[in-house]
């Protein structure tokens, strides 16, 4: 109990769920106990029913906006039209968190719809910091930047990801979204050390934690690669990383993401409760098996 009191200045944050189209109606109808939800702003930018549904959900619970389209690492800079649309939605939704990814998606006028990996170089840091600063200035908000799942490494990367993120925080005042599934996937695919990552990022800057499942695929030439498809339960090693993360970032709320093979809303709710139990166990200093409980 003493540990609980020392680790939290208030109640530990509850775990939210990533809200996707198949569950929209159910949540609008009030049939969800999720304490907060997170959505991709790109799915709510038109008029019509989707945006109206989101605003009605916002009346009952906090909403987080998790962008996938700003392409913060693009050498071409930020798409001003898209940024204006994010801002317009943000002003209507009044999210409690706004986040994006440490990656790039656009080049030469094409939006490639993937979170493509940056080389961690001084040049990429300068470009990303300039883009993040512009977005934060336009939105009037601090952005949380998420570590991506990586499938390849660039030969000319000159620093570890955690150091790149720490420099980005220093340069722009942005925060960090720590995705523990992505840490695990990247560790498997590219050999990075997730515990070192957790120790190296500035703990005060971490404002949210993501949890999700991944797939294991064979790769051409033999071996296995993990794919961050958000299509399954949170894997056991990811729960272990989560326990490590909540010990370091006790005030960052966690979120369950599920984007392919999307199950019933109750399955997501159960996964979120499992995360809450891991967090409570971590707070009072006992180890806890999320799967069994």
């Amino acid at each position, binding site marked *: 109990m003493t540990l609980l009191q020392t680790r939290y200045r208030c109640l530990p944050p509850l775990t939210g769920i990533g809200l996707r189209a198949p569950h929209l109606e159910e949540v609008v109808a009030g049939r969800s106990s999720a304490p907060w939800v997170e959505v991709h702003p*790109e*799915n709510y*930018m*038109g*008029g*019509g*029913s989707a945006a*109206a549904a989101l605003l009605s959900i916002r009346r009952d619970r906090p909403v987080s906006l998790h962008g*996938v*389209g*700003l*392409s913060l*690492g*693009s*050498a*071409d800079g930020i*798409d001003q*039209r*898209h940024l204006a*649309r994010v801002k317009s939605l943000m002003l209507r939704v009044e999210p409690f968190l706004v986040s994006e990814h440490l990656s*790039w*998606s*656009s*080049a*030469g*006028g*094409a*939006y*490639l*719809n*993937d979170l*493509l990996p*940056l*080389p961690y*170089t001084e*040049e*990429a840091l300068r*470009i990303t910091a300039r883009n993040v600063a512009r977005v934060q200035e336009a939105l009037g908000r601090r952005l949380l930047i998420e570590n991506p799942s990586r*499938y*390849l*490494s*660039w*030969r*000319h990367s000159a620093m570890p990801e955690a150091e790149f993120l720490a420099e980005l925080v220093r340069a722009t005042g942005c925060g960090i979204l720590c995705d523990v599934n992505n840490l695990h996937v990247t560790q498997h695919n*590219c050999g990075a050390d997730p515990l070192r990552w957790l120790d190296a990022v500035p703990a005060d800057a971490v404002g949210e934690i993501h949890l999700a499942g991944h797939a294991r695929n064979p*790769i*051409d*030439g033999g071996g296995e*690669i993990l*794919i961050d498809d958000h299509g399954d339960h949170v894997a056991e090693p990811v729960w272990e990383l989560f326990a490590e993360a909540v010990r370091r970032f006790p005030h960052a709320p966690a979120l369950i993401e599920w984007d392919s093979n999307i199950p019933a809303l109750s399955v997501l709710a159960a996964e979120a409760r499992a995360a809450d139990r891991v967090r409570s166990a971590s707070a009072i200093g006992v180890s806890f098996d999320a799967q069994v409980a």
Partner: protein
Amino acid sequence: MLKLPDLQNGVRLAVLGRSRPEIIAAILGEEGEAEARLRIHQHHILTSLTEALKANFPVVCRVVDARFFGYAADAFIRLHPPSAPCLAEYGAEFPDFIRAFEPARALPYLGDLARLEWAVMEARNAPDAAPIATESLRQVAVVDYPDLTLQLDPSLRLIRTLWPVERIWAAHQDPKPAEPIQLGSEGSRLIVRRRGAEIEVESVEPATFAFVAALRHGRCLAKAGSAGLAADPFFDMAMALRRLLAEQALVGFSVLPTRNRGVREP
């Protein structure tokens, strides 16, 4: 060392199908492994964009079957990748592409069907706008009526087609109408709109179509009426206007002093 703009443009070209050896060389691992790793991104990009096109053109996809659609989508994506992140708005060039797509030649109506689906998508994503009430038009002086311009519901789209694509489209909605579709039957003029959350596709007379099209182009009432009369000498503009009002298709109006009228009411 690859500069970031060159790396990003190289990856763009590589995932869209061009050979970029300098990108493969910049990826850690031997050549075959580096290629396989880049292919993970390429696969995700092509499949997720194909899914986005399927979502925006679901009836075209059902008409040609998912495998053929995937084949066409793959070719389309390489030529026309999206230019912006809102994938609900991806595929503006797809109707023209599929019309000219050689392997789809046997289905000449596909282009128009895709145009209808694009209009449906645009209607779905159009901003909301409150309709004007009939009474509000009473404040317009009779003498100003010819110069009246009317703003149409922003979700309204007009489609002129040589094929009965609205019936093909309707047959793939739920609940389906049971009537058989004669591909040889006459083409149609369609008005697509969103009302509430529902999409309406209505086939209208040539004169009504010409009238509404002129209004949509910002023509004043006098010119829109002339367009209707040019299509049908018995066109009843008052009735057409009442119908637009009753169907809540008008969201604003203004009287522009477009010409200097010799006589004004005192």
